[in-house]
Every structure is written in structure tokens, then in C-alpha cells.
């Protein structure tokens, strides 16, 4: 914490103020709030990943089955790649908006949302497969932890898709496209989206690839 303080001790809080009352740190309230929220999200996912790691190696007695026996690595690799690329389209959408290119913004926002949907559908398919093959939430704690972790991540993706599509809807509906201020919303949704992506980067390796 003292590091955060340091910035502020050396520069006066009112350096950037010309008039009225604005952000003492020079970072928009919403953006600052978003970064703190994302920082806190590490603890959410940290707990879930830890659960999985704790249970994945335990012995649940004879005849028990483990999520690792069900993984379809080629399939998950593709959906991981899809999510990774959606981060690219997201950042392109934001870059286009900064340039003032409303058309491209619209396209890339839609593309990001679509890629997100593809990822979620893939996860839905994966879950269905697992359940059909006999791995259920109720099977054992390792299975419970797997479903809760990936499910919780999946819900994050769904929320992101909803946000993206509603932004896209606005950019289509509004005559001049997104306003510069809505650029901040795009930026915030982008931060959230990239965060969901980096969490998957970790999950992909820690849960799926490390044996």
C-alpha cells in the first residue's frame, strides 16, 4: 500500500485540477473502481483454483473418476484459442473507437461478442459431454471443484457477452455511433473482458495442461 501512497506524496493532489472537483489521482472514478474490482476478482478465482488443486490429486476410493480423465485437450485448446483471439478483437474495437472509426468499432464489438458466445457454447458442450460420460457435480469434490471453477468463469464470460452486445446495440442504434464518453464504457468492458481472458490463460494451464 505504501507504494500507492508514494505517487501521491510527491505530487500534490490538486496538480491536475484546473476547476471544479475532479479525480485526485487523475484516473476516472469508474476506471479506478474497475481496476480495484478486478484486483479483488483475483481472490475469487484464486479460491476456486485452489479448491480444484486441493482436490484433484486426492484419492476418493476405488472406482472413483477424476475430471482429468475426461479432458479433451484438442477441443479445449481450440476454445482457449477462441477466447484469446476475442481479446484481440476487443482491443481492436477500442482502438477503432479511439481513432473515431465507428464502423470498425461496431464490427469488432460484434466479433468479440460472437467469439465469447463460441467459447461459452464450447463450455456448455464440454459440460454436457462430461455429464453424459458420468462426471457430475455430485461425483466427488474434484468434480465439484472443476464444475464450480469453470462454471464461475463461464458466468463471467456470459456477463461479458451481455455487456458487449448491449454496447454493440447502442453503436448500431445511435445515429452517430458510440459517443466519446461511451468510449470509457468500451474501455471498461474491455478491461473486464481481458481479465476474463487472463484468468482462462491460467485455468487452461493449471487445470487442463499440467498433469
Amino acid at each position, binding site marked *: 500500500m505504501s507504494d500507492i501512497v508514494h505517487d501521491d506524496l510527491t505530487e500534490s*493532489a490538486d496538480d491536475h485540477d484546473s476547476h471544479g472537483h475532479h479525480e485526485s489521482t487523475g484516473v476516472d472514478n469508474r476506471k479506478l473502481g474497475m481496476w*480495484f474490482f478486478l484486483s479483488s476478482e483475483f481472490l475469487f478465482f484464486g*479460491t476456486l483454483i485452489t*479448491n480444484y488443486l486441493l482436490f484433484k490429486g486426492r484419492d476418493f476410493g476405488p472406482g472413483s473418476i477424476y475430471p482429468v480423465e475426461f479432458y479433451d485437450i484438442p477441443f479445449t485448446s481450440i476454445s482457449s484459442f477462441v477466447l484469446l483471439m476475442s481479446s484481440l478483437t476487443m482491443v481492436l474495437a477500442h482502438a477503432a473507437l479511439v481513432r473515431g472509426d465507428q464502423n470498425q468499432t461496431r464490427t469488432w464489438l460484434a466479433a468479440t461478442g460472437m467469439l465469447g458466445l463460441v467459447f461459452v457454447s464450447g463450455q456448455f458442450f464440454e459440460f454436457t459431454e462430461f455429464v453424459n460420460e458420468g462426471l457430475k457435480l455430485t461425483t466427488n*469434490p474434484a468434480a465439484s471443484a472443476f464444475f464450480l471453477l469453470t462454471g464461475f468463469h463461464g458466468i463471467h464470460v456470459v456477463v461479458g457477452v451481455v455487456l458487449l452486445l448491449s454496447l454493440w446495440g447502442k453503436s448500431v442504434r445511435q445515429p452517430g455511433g458510440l459517443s466519446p464518453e461511451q468510449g470509457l*464504457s468500451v474501455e471498461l468492458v474491455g478491461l473486464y473482458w481481458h481479465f476474463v481472458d487472463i484468468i482462462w490463460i491460467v485455468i487452461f494451464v493449471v487445470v487442463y495442461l499440467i498433469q
Partner: protein
Amino acid sequence: MATIAPQKIATVFRRPEATTGFWSWITTVDHKKIAVMYGYTAFGFFIVGGIEALLLRIQLAGPDGTFLTAAQYNGLFTTHAVTMIFLFVMPMASAFFNYLLPLMLGARDVAFPRMNAVSYWIFLFGGIFIYSSLFFATNPAPLGGNLPGGALDASPLGSIPNGGWFLYAPNSGTQFSPGTSIDYAALGLQILGIASLISAVNFIVTIFNMRTKGMRLLRMPVFVWMTLIVAFLLLFSLPIIAIALFMLTADRQFGSVFFVASSGGDPILWQNLFWLFGHPEVYILILPAMGMVSEVLPVFSRKPLFGYPAIVFAGGAIAFLGFGVWAHHMFSSDIPTVAQAAFGLSTMTIAIPTGIKIFNWIATIWGGRIRLKTPMLFSLGFVALFVIGGLSGVTHAIVPSDWQQTDTYYIVAHFHYVLFGGAVFGLFSGLYYWFPKLTGRMYNERLGQVHFGLMFLGTNLTFGPMHWLGLQGMVRRTWVYSADTGLGPWNMVVSIGAFIIALSIFVFMVNWTWSKRKGEIAPNDPWDARTLEWTIPSPTPEYNFGVEPTVTALDDFWHQKYDEDDEGRAVRRPEADELVDRLIEANGNPTTEIHLPAPSYFPIIAGFGMMLLAYGIIYHTRPWGIPLIVVGILMLISSLLGWGGEPLEEVHEEHLDGQGDSDHDPGSLDPNQESTPRELAGVED
């Protein structure tokens, strides 16, 4: 003044317009009104939790008590803890944060006023949700178990959550707690956690971003610092309990087996996760009180806080270390020896920053000119009692001693000295200190001192003997003890003490109610104080500051009033009285138009939707369960969208002095953003 012009906006509801009366409270986004609602709600729950404590103490006054049944007792000790922690101390602290943060920082509101209102309503409905278990929950005996007479516990008291606030697995699982009462506790805590997480983000951003000109971080009052630290603790500890509660709810409702030992689940994992949150939670409860005491002691000693940076740093250190000591709640549990030793050591280190605070406080009053007014008495009481709690805390860091002490009344004594003698005394100190600010009137000093005297006596009579009882072998959470254990006499003393505390609280309520209406009109700066909230009229005007203050030092207001002579003694500047009057005058009569965030219906709808969602989850197997979930989610989404759809402020011709403020759920979208003057101003920068 707030200009509220009706305007046509495409929202579900017409914009609320009331500025007084019932609807103004329901729709308010004013941090002061929200604070008042937090305060009264929290105090209401304090009375409930207190009555629960008295019932427990009646039962335990003598051996083999028959006043309560086992089910009632187990329910009452659970809800007593939940109520006092989550529904009293935390929201009461939140009331202070809400009221004081903007005032101490020189701001017109918090960073996200509507999120602030959402926090309050979610908290309120969360509390109602937990207590609705009285009427809706069930608490049958575990499968195969028999209750006296073969019947369920008939009274409503028998149906409240009864697994302890810690909800230890596997007792909290469906096998051993088959009814719905545990679900009420788990989901209720989840809801309260969401409310706190939202406020944590809000407070952090407020503190970082809403400081007035010149208010550098190290010029902020200690109370603001402690708020910041608490908000960080909430931000990083709540996610852990949120996931743990998700896991418990999933176990109970959807058949996962995280904590079901017979399926390979791990009950100790619950303990780890719970205390990873639970220990920082202790500091969440005590740090706000430490902040208030750090404000009160200097004012009533007429000296600056001794070692301001040390006190701030110690607060940060306590918070940081607080994350690394959770396993000391589990010394007799199934953790390896090396971990026991390591956590014993880390626990001991907490005593160091705590000591720094205590010593600095004593140094603050040392050499001062101590006025023993009620707020000061409570602050001094805080220091005295907290020292006892801190010292007994060190004795449980001695791991083998803790093997004897844990789960006995010795622990109960320890944390009540910290949380009642500490946190609650601090909160009362604050309530008396800022009473004139809130109401514009003075409380009755004599009654205040009677309150303090009774409460100090009652606290020591209640919690002092508990040390002894614990060492003599009285185990916690037992609804009866046998006369043979010889624990009877001291239990009687404890119970008498509890009623003395109750009496003192009654005195407080009389004082408050009477003084609020009939008390003397408070002078502008009744305590000759040091911080910005005393430079504005009392009660605080809706816009807080008529003129945005500029600060040049820590305790800026004091330095404006006082100079130092050659010896370093404070000397009141001749123009001080005039200055105070002028400041109050200017702040009470703004020359420019001030735009305030407009009230909104959506926060209360969001809070209500959250509660419906929770009911829906508990009863998802009933035909009306799923519809309830859907309605709850729809209410949540529609209120978030609706709230995104209404501008924070009404549209103005010209932007004169916009509220530094933007209010959005992070990630929610705002189609009318361009109409918000503040945002335009932001772009101009």
C-alpha cells in the same frame, strides 16, 4: 442548492422528486441520508442482537438452565454473532464512513452515490432475509435424531440458523442440518457480503479520487485512513468467503460434495477458507473504531495525534499481517505442526503494530489538556479495554496454551474485550462526538457519562469473569453446564453484568431521543475540533460544502485557529472566532449553483431483487422457486439498466460547479452519458 427539474427520460419510472418525507429516504442517494439509514438500521439490529445476548445469559445464569431449549440456544448464539458482526458493527461503521468520508475529504458526495444506496438496500434486505428465517425456515433434527416429545421445536426461535456464525462443515451440510435455516444464514451472509464489497470499491475510489484541493494522502484524518484500510480488507477478504459460501450453498442445494466427508470432501478446507476471511474480518470490525478514537483523543486533549504516520502505518501493518494469521483459529484442528508454529509466530507479530497504536494514543493524551466529555470517556475506555483484549490475545498466540483455551469462554472474553470493549466503545465515542454534527444539537452530558459508567462497569463484569470461566473449563456454545463443574457463581455475575450493559444502552437511547429534539442548540464548532466536517453548519447541509475547501496541512482547521508560541504551546489566533463564523457562513450559503446527484428508485429495487433471488435459490425445488429466481434477476437487471438509463444529475444549461462524480456499476452501460455535465467536463480536461 440542488436543482431538481422534472424531465422526460425514457426510464421505467418517473424520476423521484421528493426531497423530504418517506420517499426522499427511499430514493435518496445522499451519503448523509444513507448514513443515517445505516445508523438506525444497525442500531435496531444492535438491540435485537443485545436481546439475544440477554436471553442467552438468562439461560446460562445458573447451571442446567431450562429457560431455552437446545435448538433455541444454538439458534440464538448463532444469530447473536451474525447480528452483531454483520448487522451491527459493520453497518454502523459504514454509517460513519458514509457520513464522514466526504466531509473529511472536502467532497460533496462519495464517488458512486447510487452504488452507495444500492449497498444500503442490499444490506437491509440481507438482514431482513436472515431474520425472516424466524417465520419461514425449518430446523428438523438430523435424520434419525429425536427431539423431546418427538416434535419439532415449535417456537419461531427454534427455526433460526443454528450452525454457529462460522457454519463449520460438515455440521452445516444437509446431512446434519437438514432444514432450511442454514441456507438462510449462508445466503444471507452472501448478500451482506455483496453489499460490503460494493461499498468497499466505492469507499476506496472516494478516498483516492474525491479529495479536495491539497488533501494529500498523508493529510487525511486517521479515520479516513482506517476506512481505506478497512475497504482494502473487505475488497480482498470478502471474495474468499463468497466462494466458500457458494460452495456451501452448492453442497446444500445442488448436491456438490466439497464438505461432505463421506464423499471425500474436506471439512478443514471450510475452516481455512472461513478464517482466511474471518480473521481480516476482525480487523474490519476494529479498525473503524481505532480511526474514531484517533480523531477523538487529540481533540479532547487539545494536542495533535502523536505519531500520525506511525499510527497510519501500524493500521496498514495490522491489516497486512491480518491476512497471514488465519490458522490460529485452528490450532487444535488438523493442521501440521510446522504450520502451527509459523502461525503462532505471525500471530504474535500482530501485537507489535497494535502496541504502537496504544502507545501513541497514550502519548497523545500525555501532556494534553484532557476534557473528560462523554466521547473522550468512551475513547479512553476503548484504550483501557482494548489493552486487555490485546494482552489476552497474546496468550493464545502461545500455541500450546491455545490448545487449552480455544473453544472456551476465555476466547469469548478475549474477543468481547476487543469487539465490545473495543469496537463498540469506539462506535459510541463516535456517536457522541459527531452527534452535534448530525443533529445540530448537543446530547445530555450527564446522561452520557452515566451511560459510560454503567457500560464500563457492565463490560468488565460481563466479560472479565469469562476469562476465568474459560480457564476453569467452560466450553463455548453449550446451552447447559452441569452444577458439578463449579461454574455457576461466575456465570451469575456475567449475567448480571449483561443486564447492566443493557441498562446503559437504555440510558443512551433516552439521551439520543431526547437530545435530538430537545437538546441545546450546538455551537458551530463545539469541540474546538481539527477536521473539515466542523467548518460547515450543523446539521450538514445537503451539499456539504458551500465553498470547496483547500487544505494545506494535516488538521488544517486547527492550524487556522491556533498558532504555536515559542514554547510550542497552542495559542488561539485572535481572529479564530471570526474565522470559524465566516467559514460556517460561507459554507452555509453557497454563491454558485451546486448540482447534486438526483434520487433514484432503482437502488431499493435492486436490493429487493437480490432478496427474492435468495429466496428463489432456497426454494428452487418448489414450483414457485424458479419464478422467484427469474423475478429477482429481472429486478436486478432492470434496475441496473434503468439506473444506467437515468442520468446521475439532471441536465443543466451551463456547467458551473459539477459534482465530481460518476456513478455506474463497473461495466454497466450508460446510453445517456453525454448528457451528464460532469462527463463533459471530464473530456475537456
